């Protein structure tokens, strides 16, 4: 509970970030979605010991973060909240893979530690890219982008309705949980039967609410389809963004400038 309850107010904050204005916010959501997906695929397509080719990819989140005027501290906190799963799986790598791959002076670093570092780096990069996507586009725009890119209409409508009622039902559940906490002392009162009846009450209310929503929608001419009337236009800026980042990411992926730069610098100093 602690995690969801404490991150729930954040949810609205992430949405409010999307209503800011910046060059990134003004881009077409389709362009941002495609670029983010390409970024993620590029990052995870490296082999498991890749570390140095991954680091330059940090340029994408850093540039977008600053251009979109997003608060870095907030995104870092969200990253930390989400990190346990990747860390839990990755932490086994040093245990199982003890082959020495890297010597830094007299220090020997095993393949497991390198691949763990690689996993955590991938995690930070991919999650940061996804969070920036949401924070700079907003959920409605992303749904619209999905619809225009060919996602089934029923799924998009489902996403939009879910997002709309999340706050209503979330508040209701928070009130229920708070009321229960005030009436139960210690662990008493959070047994399974009590929770089941609480949930069932919430479910019954939800079903009634769904019926009311349906009638209200029916009154306004609902025929099983939501019509999204918002013009989406891919302009010159959007095209530049897409082509520029595609070229940059593919270059980082396949050419890998890091060793070259390193060699150039190394050649100069030694």
């Amino acid at each position, binding site marked *: 509970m602690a995690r969801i309850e404490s991150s729930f107010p954040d949810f609205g904050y992430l949405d409010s970030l999307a209503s800011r204005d910046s060059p990134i916010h003004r881009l077409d959501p389709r362009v941002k979605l495609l670029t983010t997906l390409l970024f993620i*695929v590029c990052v995870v397509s490296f082999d498991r010991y890749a570390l140095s080719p991954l680091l330059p990819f940090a340029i994408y989140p850093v540039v977008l973060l600053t251009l979109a005027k997003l608060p870095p501290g907030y995104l870092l906190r969200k990253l930390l909240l989400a990190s346990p799963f990747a860390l839990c799986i990755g932490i086994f*790598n040093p245990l199982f893979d003890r082959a020495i791959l890297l010597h830094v002076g007299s220090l020997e670093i095993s393949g497991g530690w390198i691949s763990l570092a690689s996993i955590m780096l991938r995690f930070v990069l991919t999650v940061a890219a996804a969070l920036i996507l949401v924070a700079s586009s907003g959920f409605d725009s992303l749904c619209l982008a999905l619809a225009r890119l060919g996602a089934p*209409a029923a799924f998009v409508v489902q996403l939009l309705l879910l997002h709309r009622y999340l706050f209503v039902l979330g508040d209701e559940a928070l009130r229920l949980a708070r009321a229960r906490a005030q009436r139960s002392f210690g662990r008493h009162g959070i047994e399974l039967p009590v929770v089941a009846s609480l949930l069932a009450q*919430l479910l019954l209310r939800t079903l009634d609410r769904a019926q009311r929503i349906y009638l209200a929608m029916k009154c306004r001419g609902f025929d099983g389809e939501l019509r999204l009337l918002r013009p989406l236009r891919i302009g010159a800026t959007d095209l530049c963004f897409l082509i520029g980042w595609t070229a940059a990411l593919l270059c980082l992926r396949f050419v890998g400038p890091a060793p070259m730069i*390193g060699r150039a610098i190394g050649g100069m100093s030694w």
Partner: protein
Amino acid sequence: MHMADALISPLVGGVMWAATAGITAYSARRLQANGDDSVVPLMGVLGAFIFAAQMINFSIPGTGSSGHLGGGMLLSILLGPHAAFLAMASVLTVQALFFADGGLLALGCNIFNLAFFPCFVAYPLIYRPLAGAHASAKRIRVAAIVAAIVGLQLGALAVVLATFLSGVSELPFGTFLLLMLPIHLAIGVVEGLLTAAVVTFVDSARPGMLAAAAASRPPLQRGGGRLLAQLLLLTAITGGLLSWFASTRLDGLEWAIFHSSGREALSTPATNTHSLATALQERTALLPDYSFRQAADSGDAAAAGDAGEVAGTGSEKAQEWPDVSAATSFSGLLGASLSMLVAGLLGLVLLRRRQRP
């Protein structure tokens, strides 16, 4: 058990995306063919209900820890499999986007594991036959527990398989399986108990409602076989295309293929094959090789238990890894840190420019 982007390869992620997209399109089509538009707001609000329900936790007897509802099974009982699948998929999408639970590339895997198995396997094949139309509370409880356990075990198995095939984590297949399955057995029991309790409560508070819900939204009909065939075809095509791509580019999977095939055959050069057919063959050969190798390793370790074996595999790994010469890796690291520095500087400059006006 949300998988993260960091732990999967593009091949696994892409194949699961394709499979999930196929099921989503199929479910949406079935829903539209059903013609009952009252289910649209119901699905949306019930999806939000799943979120809300996860905030109300309870203590698991005897362990001191607490759990909450997962939701796939409950939604299937209330909405039928197609609508439930779409609702769960949307819940997982929102979790991926807003809570960073799982990633965008892993979304296909997560929807498959947490929505497909409960909605299209556990519910129609286990819950419905066991519970029947007018079931007693006890029967609902048994059916819900069994169905939830099966759904979650399949999901956990899929997580292990996807992680293993991606080759990013070093966890051996067997060990990971032994970690995941018992945990999800316990989660399954709790999920089943809670689902059954909610269902029976609703049944007693509003008699007939569940029966009406089940009747108006029939489960899988004859289209199921065709769906499966289409899915398999789609998966095979995507897998083939992506693995061809993967085999021409050196990435994790190819490394894994090289790794597994390099030890058994000298005559078959695994790395310089370019034809799609050979790539596919390699893909299918990947699993048996790996499991054989795993079995041999653990067998040796169990039988002899000597450290020499471990050292042997260690040095072999070091050999198979391409150039580990200190110079290249060091210049790589240097260049990478430098470009990180440049990225950071760029950020600072942009930040300054932003604050000036």
